[in-house]
């Protein structure tokens, strides 16, 4: 089977008058219709990688890659119009904070319906019906009522469900979720993950889940990519994370406080300069 997404040697560089920042340096991975997690600390380049996939890196940022194949289509050569069609319809992204992603002066339902109508020339009534179905799918009770609320009237967890509904309504093949749950309470977080999990399974989608929470990613995804300083340190199956080879991965796991560990000193992650530039 050809990969849903195939990234080879991706580089993202931000060049300003003062300094040059290489946010992503030679990232390569391929994925099918599976749940893949990208884990890293702040500044590891995990979010920038996904923005680059969607063509959302703005100047002064520049993106280069040997290839960026999505379902056999080379994304680097897609013109802006084609890219817009792919983005939204075939690849969707859920951001960390729904407050900034939703239009504050439009009702929640109208926004979702609009997202649907852009991609699937449908009548208003049909879009409304579809939207309410979608709101039900993300397990919102009383969807008709929620349809007519404004973004500021909903809670964080609800807002994030609405975002997921909006992103999934065009029926994309790939969903990118950038820390979609880190601002939420742990139980709400798990419920949202379950919703995404079910939808991915039912629709046979690919999911890229970006997070700093190694535990969560390990229990949720099929495979894990661990990034540090713009590079991939290690890729492993989630089930075999405890056998991870790379000292950075091991360090990250060890420095997490556990309910079972006795109090005392936590092992501190010792950063090896070789992780930055050395061979992997």
């Amino acid at each position, binding site marked *: 089977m050809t990969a849903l997404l195939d990234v080879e040697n991706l580089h993202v560089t931000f060049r300003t*008058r*003062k*300094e*040059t*920042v*290489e*946010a992503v*340096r030679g990232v390569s991975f391929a994925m099918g219709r599976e749940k893949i997690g990208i884990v890293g*600390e*702040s*500044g*590891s*380049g995990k979010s920038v990688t996904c923005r680059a996939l969607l063509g959302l890196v703005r100047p002064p940022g520049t993106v280069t890659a040997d290839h960026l194949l999505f379902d056999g289509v080379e994304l680097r050569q897609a013109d802006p119009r084609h890219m817009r069609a792919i983005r939204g319809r075939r690849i969707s992204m859920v951001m960390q904070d729904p407050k900034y992603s939703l239009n504050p002066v439009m009702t929640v339902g109208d926004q979702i319906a609009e997202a649907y109508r852009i991609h699937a020339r449908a009548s208003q009534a049909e879009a409304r019906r579809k939207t309410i179905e979608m709101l039900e799918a993300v397990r919102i009770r009383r969807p008709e009522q929620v349809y007519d609320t404004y973004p500021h009237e909903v809670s964080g967890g609800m807002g994030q469900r609405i975002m997921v509904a909006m992103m999934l309504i065009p029926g994309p093949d790939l969903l990118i979720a950038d820390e979609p749950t880190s601002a939420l309470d742990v139980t709400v977080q798990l419920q949202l993950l379950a919703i995404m999990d079910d939808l991915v399974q039912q629709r046979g989608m690919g999911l890229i889940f970006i997070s700093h929470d190694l535990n969560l990613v390990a229990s949720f995804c099929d495979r894990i990519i661990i990034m*540090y*300083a*713009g590079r991939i340190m290690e890729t492993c199956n989630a089930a075999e994370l405890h056998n991870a080879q790379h000292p950075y991965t091991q360090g990250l796991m060890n420095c997490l406080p556990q309910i079972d560990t006795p109090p005392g000193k936590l092992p501190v992650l010792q950063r090896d300069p070789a992780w*930055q530039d050395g061979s992997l």
Partner: protein
Amino acid sequence: MTTQVKYTTPEGQGGRYHRWLLASAPRSRYQARLGRAYQAWLTFRQNRLAVIGLGIIIALVAAAALAPIIAPYPPNAPDLSIRLAPMSAEHWLGTDELGRDILSRIIHGSRLTLYVIVLVAIIAAPVGLLIGTVAGYAGGWLDMVLMRITDIFLAFPKLILALAFVAALGPGIENAIIAIAITAWPPYARIARAETITIRNADFIKAARLQGAGPARLIWGHVMPLCLSSLIVRVTLDMAGIILTAAGLGFLGLGAQPPLPEWGAMISSGRKFMLDQWWVAAMPGIAIFVVSLGFNLLGDGLRDVLDPKAEGQ
């Protein structure tokens, strides 16, 4: 950001002072503060228009300081034999109706302009800052009272209120300054209050309160420094308006009195000869225009440097 950042500047190159100023580990408060100012200057320098504005203001200050030396003639020496002479090698900008050299009068007039600006800034900005921060920090009834007073002053048109004051106190440059200052502070109070309200609930203010800091220390040491930058920008941008108001009062005969070479008064006396000897009115007009422009350019540049919202990222 972790360490994949590769600095191409600023450390490592440049002279000794450059490196001392940009040291990542300053050794004294003084060095830290200078370093911060230097960094601001480096940002400011990139805005060419702002540098031009700064140049104009420096030229104004230099002209005011060195007026007796650089002015070719005394400002108030009439010579009726050459009245209303056009521009020439002897009188670069011509002479006025009493045969006084216009260039010399403009140079000496810069002292008056600077005098007005500086006094208004010294009176209006601190008053506005104090009222605004106190009102914003205290909240409640004190905020109500102070802001309603501010609103009353804000409700009067600026020039009309100044006219009323001058009419009551009598014409003269000092009274003009007082009148302008009284009308200038309310917007500053508004700005300072708005800034204070956003700062008031910041964690660093809570932390200071938990250390036992009283309201005076909090307002003076913690709140005011953060309001200062937007206030400086606003005052600089207002300078053009203040110059124009002062000139307007002078033009109406309510500001500086003859024979003082105040720019507005010069335009006023030149307007009788506008059609035939245009330079008498035009030259001080150009001076007002250039200095106002200078302050506006400088203010824009300062906004880029001092805007607290762009900081710390």
